[in-house]
């Protein structure tokens, strides 16, 4: 009895303060995720009631001739979507951040806000606006190209199987360029001026300053941006759905995992939804993202060098 009185009092306030966040997160995030994973292990029984089928749905998804085609197509399109983001969005984001963090840039605040603005817009607006800009019937892009003598370059990019996905990826890049820019800009302005001055004294100037001093210091931020891009891209759905519809035309050339999931889960026109196969695709997406994040955490993040400044 005497010992228990000497024990540190239980710090209730920690639990109480954490409870709302944990509760809400569990109810609206964790439970649905696990319920969805559980559902992917069920199928429609002979009497129409749900029946436990183990991993049969996943086998169907990967081996059935009518499921594997759309699945691999969607996965490949997703990979292309991600590669375009990594090759275009992130380098340009770094470049913009580097320009913004230059000492004497007039109108810096204006550019910073203007470049970040599309990120705050709804997908619906972005999809609709770009569809209008690129529309062959009313769009301004044809006129604009024509005014510089490049009218013949215009094509209905969103309607051609070989250009639609790239066009949509670039629209998404346009929308989200603000995120890498901001994160990397924040890392760059955290670099103390003394460090740059010291570098200058040692003869590291100009472009070398960026590659030899700044870049090593912002690698962790670039890592975070990459993993955010990865998760965001493999969960993407809205932009494709808004601009191309649930069938992700033309001829499924813009079909990514998100649209495949939607079409399977909720159905389309005369096709009724299949919640079990839908949950299976959701499960596959979850695993893909989980693997990607693990590869990053164990393969990349541990090797990054962190500097105390």
């Amino acid at each position, binding site marked *: 009895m005497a010992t228990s009185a000497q024990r540190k009092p239980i710090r209730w306030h920690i639990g109480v303060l954490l409870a709302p966040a944990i509760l809400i997160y569990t109810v609206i995030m964790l439970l649905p995720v696990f319920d969805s994973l559980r559902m992917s292990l069920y199928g429609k029984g002979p009497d129409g009631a749900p029946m436990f089928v183990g991993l049969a749905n996943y086998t169907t998804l990967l081996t*059935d001739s009518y499921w594997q085609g759309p699945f691999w197509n969607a996965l490949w399109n997703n990979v292309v979507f991600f590669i375009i983001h990594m090759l275009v969005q992130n380098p340009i984001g770094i470049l913009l951040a580097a320009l913004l963090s230059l000492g004497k840039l007039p109108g810096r605040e204006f550019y910073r806000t203007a470049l970040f603005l599309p990120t705050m817009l709804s997908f619906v607006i972005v999809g609709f606006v770009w569809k209008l800009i690129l529309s062959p019937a009313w769009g301004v892009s044809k006129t604009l190209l024509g005014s510089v003598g490049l009218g013949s370059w215009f094509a209905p990019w969103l*309607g051609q199987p070989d250009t639609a996905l790239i066009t949509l990826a670039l629209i998404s890049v346009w929308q989200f360029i603000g995120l890498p820019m901001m994160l990397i800009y924040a890392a760059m302005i955290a670099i103390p001026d003394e460090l740059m001055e010291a570098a200058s004294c040692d003869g590291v100037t100009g472009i070398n300053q960026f590659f030899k001093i700044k870049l090593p210091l912002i690698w962790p931020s670039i890592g975070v941006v990459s993993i955010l891009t990865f998760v965001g891209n493999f969960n993407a759905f809205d932009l494709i759905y808004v601009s191309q519809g649930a069938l992700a035309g033309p001829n499924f050339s813009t079909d990514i995992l998100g649209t495949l999931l939607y079409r399977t889960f909720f159905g389309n026109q*005369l096709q009724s939804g299949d919640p079990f196969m839908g949950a299976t695709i959701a499960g596959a997406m979850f695993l893909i993202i989980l693997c990607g994040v693990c590869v990053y955490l164990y393969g990349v993040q541990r090797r990054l060098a962190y500097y105390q400044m």
Partner: protein
Amino acid sequence: MKRALTMSAAVVAVCASWAPMAQAASTLVIESWRADDLAIWQDKIIPAFEKAHPDIKVTFAPTAPKEYNAALNAKLESGTAGDIVTCRPFDASLEQFTKGRLAPLNDLPGMNNFSAAAKLAWSTDDGKTTFCVPMASVLHGFIYNKEAFDKLGLKEPKTEDELFAALDKIKKDGTYVPMAMGTADQWEAATTGYQNIGPNYWKGEEGRNAVIQGSQKLSEGGWVETLRTLAKWGPYLGDGYKAQSYADSQNIFTLGRAAIYPGGSWEISGFNAQATFKMGAFPPPVRKVGDTCYISDHPDIAVGMNTKTKNPEAAKKFLTWVTTSDFAKIYANALPGFFSLQTAPVAVDDPLAQTFVGWRNGCKSTIRSTYQILSRGAKPNLEDATWGASANVINGTETPEKAAERLQAALANWYKPQQK
């Protein structure tokens, strides 16, 4: 996810049914996807019914078309759906009936005002039980700009050769886009292309029933010929038609930029409001002079009774009223282009709608080929596959033969009569 969906649907249903619950006992709530018609129901249809039945109050509570099937399903499952349910044609409603959520209506007075064909879309496969009162059907065809035709000295084409000759002439002149249609939404290519001209090729009901019985394949005869003709449409559509959406096509036509619009009677009220020029319509041209013409006369909308309604008597009174000519007259004239399915002819005032409905006299009616039975397979669903095939063929990314074979494979994959 399913739970969340059910819950949100329940919340919507509670909100929707709260208001009438506070009122008199015999109150009816109508579930519908026709949010566009809210004003017509509130200002014309409901007052007319309430005048005849002062003891019954009716509320029209529509959901967005895209969400209707899923929301209705959830509401019926949780017992919160309205008393009267607007029925989609064929399998969506049949499923609700087999689950016991829609009441059989064979004994409803007034059901003999409809022919068996009109009731087809809301009857069991054996045709013995009907579970919704048919309201309206839509007709497919071509709408054209009369001013453009007059200017270029064109006449309504009667045969396919005449249609292509007219298209060539419009293209050569260059003032107008010959035909306003895009392939971006895919729905257009299938519905206003394939299902529009197809009946002349597969001989309407004859071909459709043959596929259902398994004696014709989607990869042979008229079925593949339809796709071969569609493949010739591409050059007559506007620049960049591959990225042109359904709404773009409608606007291109109503702005007077295009001469011909392949579509259907459901466009009439919208086009009347938008277009400033005179319009005419011609049925899908036949292949040779003297051929029988077939038109897609598609049952689109009906109403049924929720088995869990608290006011079955009032609901039956309402449904009986829908079978009368009083209702048909109001509905057909408030929504020109949505034609009554009653056997007794209903006078329609709109001239364009009159043209459309007139084709029923000379041509044989059929329905969209994919809607009954054939689209019950999930992967790939025949309707979805038809959208893709029609769009690909017009875009030139798939040959008609390959597309037709793909459709046949999609059907034979699950449909027993086609596996022989």
